[in-house]
């Protein structure tokens, strides 16, 4: 076994990147990315991330997980708080062998340090090496501290249904209230407004019930 995520990464790369996806929890989907766990052993795993063109993720952390990122292909700007994050556009070139010139380049992402991504028009592919210190590995997509990347991500973070319900009701209400012209001040109905508040009250009541138990 390995002592840290860098040791695991170096072993995996030196071993020819073995493809051994697990049966349990191999695939995760968010609004702008998909992941496949390529290898899992004990508290260590490596996930392949494929990102849509122009995808972004807000600054976030993965509590309890030490990570290391390895560049595969596409156009990826990986940013880590407190680090000089050079503009990756200068390296959007092929290597003499026809790979991306950043292929195999790595950045460690220690537990608790926020990082964020910006993907270019080509999309992006990278490996996420992970050492889960406190629990069995699942996916860093669900072990996420920070704003999500969207509604699909909210769903797998188990907050989506309730948050989306309020957000959708609010958006309907805001649309209904939007003045058609500058002289219009009054909404035609309060139904959307009421729906938003009812959803919010429903969630609060559920939380109160949970707090009692």
């Amino acid at each position, binding site marked *: 076994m390995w002592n840290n995520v860098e040791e695991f990464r170096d072993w995996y790369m030196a071993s020819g990147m073995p493809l*051994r*996806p697990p049966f349990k929890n*191999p695939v995760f*989907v968010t609004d702008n990315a*998909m992941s496949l766990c390529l290898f899992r052993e004990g508290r260590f795993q490596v996930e392949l991330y494929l990102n849509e063109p122009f995808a972004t993720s807000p600054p976030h952390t993965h509590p309890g997980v030490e990570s290391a990122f390895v560049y595969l*292909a596409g156009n990826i700007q990986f940013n880590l708080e407190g680090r000089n994050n050079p503009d990756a556009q200068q390296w959007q070139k092929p290597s003499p062998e026809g*790979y991306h010139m950043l292929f195999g380049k790595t950045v460690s992402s220690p537990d608790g340090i926020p990082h964020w991504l910006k993907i270019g028009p080509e999309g992006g*592919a990278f490996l996420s090496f992970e050492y889960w210190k406190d629990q069995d590995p699942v996916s860093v997509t669900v072990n996420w501290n920070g704003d999500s990347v969207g509604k699909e991500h909210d769903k797998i973070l188990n907050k989506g249904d309730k948050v989306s319900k309020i957000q959708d009701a609010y958006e309907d209400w805001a649309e209904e209230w939007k003045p058609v012209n500058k002289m219009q001040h009054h909404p035609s109905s309060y139904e959307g407004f009421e729906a938003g508040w009812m959803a919010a009250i429903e969630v609060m009541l559920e939380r109160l019930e949970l707090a009692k138990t």
Partner: protein
Amino acid sequence: MKEWNEVEAFKDWWMAAGCPIRPPFEHPLHITDMAYALTIYRKGQYQIELYICKPNTQTHVHAHPGIESLSVYLTGNLSFAKDGAEFPDLSQFQKEGANGTHMLLGKSLETVNGTPHALKVNEEGGSFLLFQRWSNKKPRSVATEYDGVTLGKKHDKQIENANVE
């Protein structure tokens, strides 16, 4: 340069060579409404795409003209159908195999040579490798050499981009 006579020989060579993962700089990623694909190896007229598929999705019967292909199961819950036949019931194989992997890991299907086929993905999502030999064109993605009803707007965009370039 190493060449192969057919897609099966290419697959055997790649496996014996330790499954090298070397995505090309040019057109490595293709996104559709159903799946994301990364070309993990490309050499001459041959390439391998790794597909990650969204849960609860399905293609219509379609073909990839001029491409001989062979799929290899990685994980998840997938079912392939050939020539308009029903999807086979693979539920008996939805079990854990050696080292915590899927029991179908590494199993390959018959070669498809431009003939109609379809894919169904169940609630676990899924992933497979697609070994390909392109007879006439430079390899890009089977998602862009697609004869059939497309999978949605993202897929249409991929095909449009490929036709423009």
